């Protein structure tokens, strides 16, 4: 069983296409799940009982079931409620909903760490509740939660590999497709293992830089 670099070189165009989708899923996923978390966390912490319960249930479900099951579930369920999206869309939605749940919990704990004094300062300045959140609390909470959020972001990047199961043409899917026709599993799996390692290290390094500049350690 000879390890053939030639075959890998021939599949570079296809691999690149897969890599681009992986990166797209990761970056859009990270941004969307963060923005969504910023919106949802105050809702999660509101006094409204209904909101509290809805979010509790949502978070409990998405944190206590595997992301694989969630991906399949959304893939089959979304068309039934009329949402027709491509597999890429389904995969993205699954990733965002999954990591939003984790981000909300992280952000919530960050928000709770923000000292009361700042809430009061905001009120003294005449800010409305939303202004207080937007201008004072959330930015701070975000910076406090940054290390934990960074973990979630790296995890999201790794789990983009899972959306291959519904046919999204990302890196893992490309490897499996090529193997299905060319049977070169050693070469393909070794190659994408290295690519993933490079991506993870790259993202981790970048996020650590961001962390060192913006994170607040309490």
């Amino acid at each position, binding site marked *: *069983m000879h390890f053939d670099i030639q075959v890998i070189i021939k599949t570079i165009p296809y691999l690149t296409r897969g890599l681009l989708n992986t990166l797209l899923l990761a970056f859009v996923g990270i941004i969307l799940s963060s923005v969504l978390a910023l919106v949802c966390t105050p809702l999660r912490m509101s006094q409204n009982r209904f909101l509290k319960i809805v979010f509790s249930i949502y978070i*409990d*479900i998405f*944190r*206590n*079931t*595997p*992301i*694989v*099951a*969630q991906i*399949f*579930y959304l893939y*089959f*369920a979304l068309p*039934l409620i009329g949402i027709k999206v491509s597999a890429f869309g389904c995969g993205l939605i699954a990733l965002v909903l999954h990591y939003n749940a984790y981000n909300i919990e992280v952000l919530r704990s960050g928000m709770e760490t923000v000292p009361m004094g700042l809430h009061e300062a905001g009120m003294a300045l005449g800010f409305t509740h939303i202004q207080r959140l937007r201008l004072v609390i959330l930015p701070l909470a975000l910076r406090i939660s940054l290390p934990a959020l960074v973990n979630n972001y790296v995890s999201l990047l*790794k*789990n983009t*590999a*899972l959306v*291959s*199961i519904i046919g999204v043409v990302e890196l*893992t899917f490309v*490897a499996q497709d090529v193997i299905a026709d060319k049977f070169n*599993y*050693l070469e393909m*799996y*070794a190659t*994408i*293992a290295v690519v*993933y*390692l490079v991506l*993870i*290290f790259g993202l981790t390094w970048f996020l650590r830089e961001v962390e060192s500049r913006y994170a607040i350690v309490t």
Partner: protein
Amino acid sequence: MVEMLVQNLPFLLGGAKNTFIVSVLGMVIALILGVPIGLMRLSKTPWVRSSALFYIEVWRGIPFIISLLFLYFALPEILKLFWKVEIGQFMAMLLTCVLWTSANAAEIVRGSVQAISFGQTEAGMALGMTYFQRMRLIILPQAVRIMLPPMIGLFTLLLKGTAIGFIIEFRELIRVGQITIERLIMVRRETASIEIYTIIMILYFLMCYPLTRLSAYFEKKLAKGKN
């Protein structure tokens, strides 16, 4: 609907059992490996520290699915140069679980040991204890308390992580569900994807939610204990 449930539940529960068994086994072995590797990570000796760091970064860094595929298909090819060896589905699954979990466990151990104030170590040194005595009698007992919530969390992640095992034909819960759906869709004319996946989600929830609550409970107790 109920009839379909009753007919298929034993098969599905069998899958849940496999998920549970491989996770428990993986966790136990991972703990045994994770503690020394976590401590090695803190060693003063450079090569010891780097080896531990390499192990941790690789097995935490590579996505679980890739490790699984690599260990199932590629590793035997490399090993066969030296030994006549085979890696079946369960072994590949277990190996992947152990490597990934032990790397994460090592990180948790490292964090927990680092969280214990140096004063404790100094006290141990003042009492004339060796490294191993210090570890065994002072540091680790305290570290275990700190480790408990994240370790339970890690086990929960592992339980959920085994879900990707279906890709190598390992008969865990998702695979078992897929087989059931396949049979129903092609032989009995029933499209039952949603129903089966709902059952699967419920079974996973039943396995994981108590653990999540347990971890939160210990975390609260720990915070109280500190004050």
